[in-house]
């Protein structure tokens, strides 16, 4: 049986960065403990015989559910509606944080 990998604080920080979640030092430690607890539990699956078993990604068995691509005005936002919940807008646009640094 494979052993549960130990999770380092560095890894926790890396995952937090990937998920774009800001975490504090205290949280980092708490998350490390929680990760270990959870990974230890789910390691149990390694004892189940799954050879020759197909994975299930969805349970309905439905395939190719299509509909006509018709414009439905009733189900469209106006520009005003689309922007209604945005904290910051400019000339009818969403304002997003800068992600490319100027040199």
């Amino acid at each position: 049986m494979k052993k549960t990998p130990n999770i380092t604080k560095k890894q926790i920080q890396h995952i937090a960065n990937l998920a774009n979640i800001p975490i504090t030092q205290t949280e980092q430690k708490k998350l490390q403990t929680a990760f270990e607890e959870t990974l230890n539990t789910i390691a149990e699956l390694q004892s189940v015989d799954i050879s020759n078993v197909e994975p299930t990604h969805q349970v309905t068995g439905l395939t190719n559910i299509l509909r006509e691509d018709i414009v439905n005005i009733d189900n469209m936002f106006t520009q005003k509606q689309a922007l209604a919940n945005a904290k910051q807008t400019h000339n009818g646009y969403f304002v997003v944080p800068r992600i490319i640094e100027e040199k």
Partner: protein
Amino acid sequence: MHNTLTLKQAISKLKNKELTHKDLYQAVSDSVQGKNKKLNVYLTVSKNPEKQAEELLDTPLAGVPIAVKDNFCTLNLRTTASSTVLDNFIPQFESTVITKLKKAGGVVYGKTNMDAWAHGSSTETSQYGRTLNPRNIDHLPGGSSGGSAAAVAADMCIAALGTETAGSIRQPAAWCGVVGLKPTYGRCSRYGVVAMASSTDSPGPITKTVEDAAILLNHIAGPDKYDATTGPHGVPDFTQYIGKGVKGLKIGYIYKDLKGLEAVTKIFEKEMKVFEKLGATVTVVDAMNPRYGISVYTIVQRGEVSSNLGRYDGIRYGNDRSHFGDEAKRRIMLGTYTLSKGYADQYYNTAQKVRTLYIKNYEELFKTYDVLIAPTSPGFAKKIGATQGAAMFGELEDLLLEASSLSGLPGISIPCYQDPKTNLFLGMNIIAPMWREDLVIQVADAYEQATNWNTWRTKEKAKK
């Protein structure tokens, strides 16, 4: 007083002019005013909900007040999913289930508290405080649809809506002593429901009686062009299975010898005898051990959560990602890890294969049995604060439900015992093959009518 009416009674009294909307809404409002501060059931209450109700008398639901879990997007009514990320979110569109509810004449009375993002089985992860169990305020209502279950138990509404991914309708229904029906995956549209685990999320009714659940399901079920995972299956009138009895049905009693369940089993096996008296055959039968369901669910759910919650950037709506609570952070990050390169096969793909084993096991059992029955939860409602430091709290409490949810099966939890000392309930979980809600309704109703565990049915009987 009118707030204690069942859905069936309220509709019938309104239609027969024995009750006015004004009196009904006054009674519900009094109940909410008196209890909400203490129980923390509603996060938002609609403004003047009775105003629109009067015009709905000729609709099937006649304008009755319905409590709605706060993860259904409701047009122009704040929707938070109990997270401060969405503290100021006013949806510009309506979820399909709510569109259908309103079309049938249901009124959204208010939005109920839940575990934040539906992550949990206690309401303790809500960023707006926990809800208390109306049956005993030292205890939790369960979750994630804990606010909706508590609203029903405390008669702060006539009926309610919840959502379930693996236990989130049935477990709080069991803990609060009410009825919770989790429909087949794909029976009710997910469009406009704040997404948690997309491959298992299922909206459904939480009600006072089984018949009420059948009535409500009639109006929220059906295919939706905005959710491609809804099945093209027709929706029968589910109320026709009320009063049918269980004569000749074959019932499989599962998890009877499961370790750790001994105390519950002692009470539960007596209740299973009710079905024999009603003319069904009950056979104790082995099912695949539910414990692997915990791991499968944890992996699948965390994975889907990490993807679904990626959309919250605080740009188009809501607040930024620093507002996520501890539980959401933990789940998003665990999903990010298990889906990352090098680990996806070990975790996610393995989980999806074990999921197949559960589905095959159920298929095999349903060749012989019409329905399978087990307790809903491994015990009574836990005390407040029980989730402290327990990273797997929800998964362990939902042990008996996860496998069937992952398989997409319909199930119902109904009250089957009340502890005279604590006032707390145990629930009975009845499951059937995909698309066979008719069977779970039929069997649950037969038990409910034959026993005295349902608060509202017992009151009804006493009057007669």
